[in-house]
């Protein structure tokens, strides 16, 4: 029933318009390499202060889903993944496009994203309230354990290097400490500067790292030659043949089944699921499809593209029910919730039930819109790529500065933004992922509060941290997740080497695993 109420809200014309704006913007930023949904949500956050929360979250959710759809277009037509979850799509998708089957590749990616997005949203609808019911019973000790899990997975597992991820995470935790201590009222790390007593606003950090840092990085290497767009020769009528449908539907469902659970547990977000899906499709392929793998097999596009959309929905489960973000975009959405004084967590479904169900309903609506937007408008999305980079990034910098000013209407915030932007540039330049920093900054204060609450209940006895069965189970699963993920990463690297070797053999310039890893860091947003 609550979902129906949500639909009633989301179907109001004004909310439909917001959803349309969100998915439109999301697809555009998904198409553009270097600009991800995290950056867009961060940039828009100050602008949405005047909106009511429901409208703001419908826009954000649209951007989030749209980004997943848009990334596939650039992967297939340009062999330049628009965002990290589409790296795998480029492997088979671009080969298909070169072989003149670009329309089919785009269609299977879009329809697969729709199928997976919708199924995963259905799963979210059923799993989230159940998870919330369970989460109500969790105490501070359990939250400490869950946050340790989130820190380690985001910090150590998402990037290409464990140590760099942990450095970024620590930096984020440190920035979270700046300001007045909530319990004792003491100033910490404010260096006597009055502006810092309120702490460093999450919006400033997110916009500084994702927008300013990225713009500076692009500015430092502005002129890179244009890439080749594979033209879609056949008309739009020849999207997918009967045989393409027959070969695609199983990978769509398998991709969904792989993506959603991986998104739900904090084990590396959407990218891991795409690699897993690709590997399984490659293994399951028989006969002609098997020969086609590496030369443009439709299964290799259908599977990973559904997996990344399903994972995107999965990420919302821990975000909404536990208040734990497992990707950069989710972290920024959490910051947006906090800005409206809404705390995602077990009580969200009771206290803000109208908002949550409207948000979930808008995901269904957004998926339908994206399917309608994506296929016929591919030409327009490719046109966006013709915008000269300096115009694009000049606009982003202006937006970033305005947004930073709008946080508190103090010029000092713009200075902080620039400082963090420069930090972001150097992190980007030297391969430090920025997502762990944002997650550390947002979760750090929550972690501290829960930890101190747990310790004051036990009167300072650290043994309390392993006193609940749930916490012990979480710590055990940390070990398991770490083990599995390192194994997966070895597999992933092996897969990349195989791909690189095959491409070299085919006489094409191959993206080295190092390049791909760099892309992945860049686009962890």
């Amino acid at each position, binding site marked *: 029933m609550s979902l129906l109420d949500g639909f009633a809200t989301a179907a109001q014309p004004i909310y439909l318009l917001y959803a349309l704006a969100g998915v439109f913007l999301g697809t555009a930023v998904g198409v*553009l*390499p270097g600009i991800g949904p995290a950056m867009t949500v961060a940039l828009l956050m100050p602008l949405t202060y005047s909106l009511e929360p429901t409208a703001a979250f419908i826009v954000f959710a649209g951007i989030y889903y749209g980004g997943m759809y848009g990334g596939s277009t650039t992967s297939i037509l*340009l062999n*330049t993944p628009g965002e990290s979850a589409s790296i795998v799509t480029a492997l088979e998708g671009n080969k298909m496009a070169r072989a003149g089957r670009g329309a089919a590749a785009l269609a299977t990616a879009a329809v697969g994203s729709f199928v997976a997005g919708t199924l995963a949203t259905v799963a979210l609808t059923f799993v989230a309230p159940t998870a919330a019911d369970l989460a109500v019973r969790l105490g501070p000790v359990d939250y400490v354990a869950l946050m340790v899990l989130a820190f380690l997975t985001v910090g150590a597992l998402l990037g290409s290097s464990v140590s760099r991820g942990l450095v970024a995470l620590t930096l984020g935790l440190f920035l979270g400490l700046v300001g007045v201590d909530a319990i004792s009222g003491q100033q910490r790390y404010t260096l006597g500067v009055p502006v810092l007593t309120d702490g460093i606003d999450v919006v400033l950090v997110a916009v500084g790292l994702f927008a300013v840092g990225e713009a500076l990085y692009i500015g430092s290497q*502005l*002129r*890179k*030659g*244009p*890439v*080749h*767009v594979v033209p879609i020769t056949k008309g739009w009528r020849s999207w997918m043949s009967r045989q393409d449908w027959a070969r695609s539907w199983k990978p769509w469902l398998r991709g969904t089944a792989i993506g959603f659970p991986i998104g739900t547990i904090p084990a590396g977000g959407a990218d891991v699921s795409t690699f897993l899906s690709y590997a399984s499709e490659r293994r399951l392929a028989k006969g002609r499809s098997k020969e086609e793998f590496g030369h443009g097999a439709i299964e290799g596009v259908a599977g990973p593209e559904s997996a990344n959309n399903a994972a995107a929905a999965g990420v919302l489960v821990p975000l909404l029910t536990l208040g734990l973000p497992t990707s950069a975009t989710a972290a920024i959405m959490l910051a947006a919730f906090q800005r409206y004084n809404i705390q995602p967590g077990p009580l969200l479904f009771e206290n803000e039930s109208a908002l949550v169900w409207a948000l979930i309903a808008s995901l269904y609506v957004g998926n339908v819109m994206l399917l309608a937007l994506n296929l016929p408008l591919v030409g327009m999305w*490719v046109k966006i*790529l*013709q*915008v*000269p*980079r*300096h115009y694009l990034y000049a606009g982003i910098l202006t937006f970033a500065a305005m947004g930073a000013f709008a946080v508190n209407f103090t010029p000092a915030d713009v200075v902080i933004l620039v400082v963090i932007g420069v930090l972001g540039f150097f992190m980007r330049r030297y391969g430090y992922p920025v997502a762990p920093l944002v997650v550390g900054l947002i979760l750090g204060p929550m972690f501290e509060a829960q930890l101190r609450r747990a310790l004051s209940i036990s009167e300072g006895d650290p043994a309390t941290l392993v006193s609940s069965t749930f916490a012990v189970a979480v710590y055990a699963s940390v070990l398991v997740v770490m083990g599995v993920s390192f194994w997966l990463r070895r597999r992933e690297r092996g897969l990349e080497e195989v791909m690189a070797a095959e491409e070299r053999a085919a006489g094409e310039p191959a993206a080295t695993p190092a390049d791909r890893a760099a892309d992945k860091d860049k686009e962890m947003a």
Partner: protein
Amino acid sequence: MSVVVGYVPNERGKAALHAALEETRFRGGPLVVVNSTRADRLVDPRYAQEDGLTELEETLSRAGADYELRHFASRETAAEDLLGVAREVSAELLVIGVRRRTPVGKLLLGSTAQTVILEAPCPVLAVKT
């Protein structure tokens, strides 16, 4: 003395190339084909890629012309690249393709053809499609 043509991989570019080939036949002397990009965007449809280049070279050698292909990325605009090459080879004639523009579009974006025509060191042949 040579003929310089500004080439873009589309109908207009082909029309200009065609006219330039005719002129070269009359005047003798080499034909310099210019295609450049500022490389400041991810996709530039006016910059010929591999298959476009092969096609271009085929057309040129089929016409039996004595040609030179200048295909490069530069920091200047297309008009400046073209004028630069024309001055460098002291061109006898510059050939470009032109298209209809709205007054507003011209106001906002400027016109490559106009810059070339007004600043060229030699006569300019503007080809309509």
